[in-house]
């Protein structure tokens, strides 16, 4: 079975993180976003994943080879271009958008799809108020919609055309079914939602795999800590915190609702809430960061500063407080 993941785009909404790393490779809860999806697909019996990418594709290709040997990645353009790749066998295939995180219900989806026997199934939540980009589409759809898809420009966003041009046609022909999603769902394409999605994911982990969460004195609620990270004394971490590989958190630090990406250091007595600390960054002593402050890769925040909603581009050293939200070029 095959699946198409619509990666595409520059991930501008997730800048400054995506200035260093393509969005699918940004670690969400200590695992690249794309890997969450690929692992779930593999579990459901998918053995061929096609990635529709455009930006930093080489980096993406290299990373995916390393991480998931079973998956071969290709770099086609839009769905129409992927037609050849998906059309080899007569199996249905999954289509999903790479921004989305949820308890991917691929097995249930396949079962549901086979049950109604029509051409397509879309996963919806909240009684169809919102359409999810996890779809299961029969190959026939591609044939039918060829005429619609071909005029699409290679750089035009594909999801638009699926929603606006394919689904209405399928629905009109009674070939589109909806399956309601159980559990959480979040579009994590921007920092604010990335953090909300993290909270949901950690909550889901608490229910399905609580052994992966860190507990004990100094940890509150759902906290995910990479085994290679070091946490100092008298810290209070959590709820809803993800600490990446090789991160050092010094003594007396308070972190809640944050993602600290790999290789970073948070120095003593600092206080962080609702932040994303980019790779290999350093947060000084007695720093206060809040309100969706996002540090890009290799940012240095000097001691005793206050960052409120700062968006800091990679490789910057910050010497002054940022009392109101703004972008630090």
């Amino acid at each position, binding site marked *: 079975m095959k699946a198409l993941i619509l990666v595409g785009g520059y991930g501008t909404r997730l800048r400054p993180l995506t200035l260093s790393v393509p969005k699918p490779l940004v670690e969400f809860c200590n695992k690249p976003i794309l890997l969450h999806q690929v692992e779930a697909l593999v579990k459901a019996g998918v053995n061929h994943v096609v990635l529709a990418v455009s930006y930093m594709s080489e980096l993406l290709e290299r990373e995916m080879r390393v991480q998931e040997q079973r998956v071969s990645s290709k770099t086609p353009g839009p769905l129409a271009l992927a037609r050849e790749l998906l059309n080899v066998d007569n199996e249905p295939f999954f289509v999903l958008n790479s921004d989305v995180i949820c308890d991917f219900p691929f097995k249930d989806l396949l079962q549901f799809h086979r049950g109604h026997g029509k051409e397509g199934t879309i996963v919806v939540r909240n009684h169809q108020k919102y359409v999810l980009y996890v779809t299961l589409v029969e190959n026939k759809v591609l044939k039918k919609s060829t005429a619609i898809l071909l005029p699409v420009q290679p750089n035009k966003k594909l999801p638009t055309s699926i929603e606006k041009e394919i689904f209405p046609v399928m629905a009109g022909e009674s070939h589109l079914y909806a399956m309601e999603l159980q559990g959480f769902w979040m579009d994590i394409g921007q920092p604010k939602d990335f953090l909300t999605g993290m909270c949901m994911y950690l909550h889901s982990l608490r229910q399905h795999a609580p052994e992966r969460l860190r507990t004990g004195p100094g940890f509150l609620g759902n906290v995910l800590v990479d085994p290679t990270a070091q946490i100092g004394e*008298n810290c209070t971490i959590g709820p809803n915190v993800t600490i990446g590989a090789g991160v050092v958190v010094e*003594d*007396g630090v*308070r972190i809640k609702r944050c993602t600290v990406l790999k290789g970073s250091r948070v120095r*003593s*007595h600092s*206080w962080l*809430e609702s932040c994303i600390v980019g790779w290999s960054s350093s947060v000084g*002593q*007695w720093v*206060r960061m*809040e309100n969706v402050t996002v540090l890009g890769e290799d940012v240095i925040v000097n001691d*005793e500063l*206050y960052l409120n909603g700062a968006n800091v581009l990679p490789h910057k050293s910050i010497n002054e407080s940022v*009392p109101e939200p703004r972008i630090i070029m």
Partner: protein
Amino acid sequence: MLKAIILIGGPQKGTRFRPLSFEVPKPLFPVAGVPMLQHHIEACVKVPNLKEILLIGFYQPNEELNRFLFNAQQEFKMPIRYLQEFAALGTGGGIYHFRDQILSGSPEAFFVLNADVCSAFPLTEMLNFQKEHGEPNSFVILGTTANRKQSMNYGCIVENEKTNEVLHYVEKPSTFVSDIINCGIYLFNPEIFQHIGAVFQKNQQDMLLEEPTNGWHRAEAIRLEQDIFTSLAGQGKLYVYKTLSFWSQIKSAGSAIYASRLYLNQYHTTHPERLASNKEGGPKITGNVYIHPTANIDPTAVLGPNVSIGTGVTIGAGVRVRESIILHGATLQDQCCVLNSIVGWDSTIGKWSRVEGTPSDPNPNDPFAKIDSETLFRDGKLTPSITILGCNVNIPSEVIILNSIVLPHKDLNRSFKNQIIL
């Protein structure tokens, strides 16, 4: 024999010092660990042959003031008395009203010091200057140099550059007059009362001729600056001694932090025992820090530069304090961070909270710059200033209080920025 008079004002003055002046008369507010007035008194007692210090003001006698006077007399072995005006009589009216008290014992000269200034108080130098410039019965104003723009907020002095005689005196001129400003510290001899008396007589005459007014204007209310110095200038009586040593007004609460810095720096020569140092088992000290011996400070705290810690203050683990005054009985819980702030008596700051203000220091690149006693609001917005927590304010854990003024006895439950919290 010499005397010194310190003009301490009264409760209607010092409103720019609120909310701190609600709890304690402003002249008793601690600067660099001791009451503002004590710096004046310590300078006075060093002057040879100075036998008595009189405080003149219109505060009702109160416990703090009495206790301060009692302790100061014990410590300095000198009569220090408070003379209460029946009303606000101005800088000249107060001393004129109590002239008999001042002149008793026949002092040949006496100093008059405003309480709301911070200075190295070069009083002996002023005496020497008076003796040396050849006019033994003259009056001396302590002057300092300001920058052109800021000079207009002060009393401006035009001098004869050879003799240092004051040729013109203008209080807060509307256009530039001179960059030499009045420091509010004077050396007089008893003859000054003749000049004040003349103004008093004239005021009485004027009032008899005038229509009866609302009654607020009194013949006794006389200002040294406008009513005396302006007319004495150019008469060969008034001289200016210009000092290069530090000087600042203490009008706003923000200037108390700046004044603390100046006095803490002076402690290196005058009171090295008042400066904290890094000791085994003690907190980490950077720069000049005063810690009252009764304060309880965790060794992992980092204090300074320019920090004053009052009696009975408790400071927890991993606390950071910089450019701040922590008043007696306050508690700073673990990992909290206090920058450019005054923390009121018995206030508490919760764990990981951040209390931060914006310093209102004079321009460091201008050697003659003075602190701006700005208004609280500009263009309808609160000007960023130091953060002040009034007495008994409770700040919960993990919040930020930024550029705010919190009035006494408040329990906050969230973060605040750029606000006055009533």
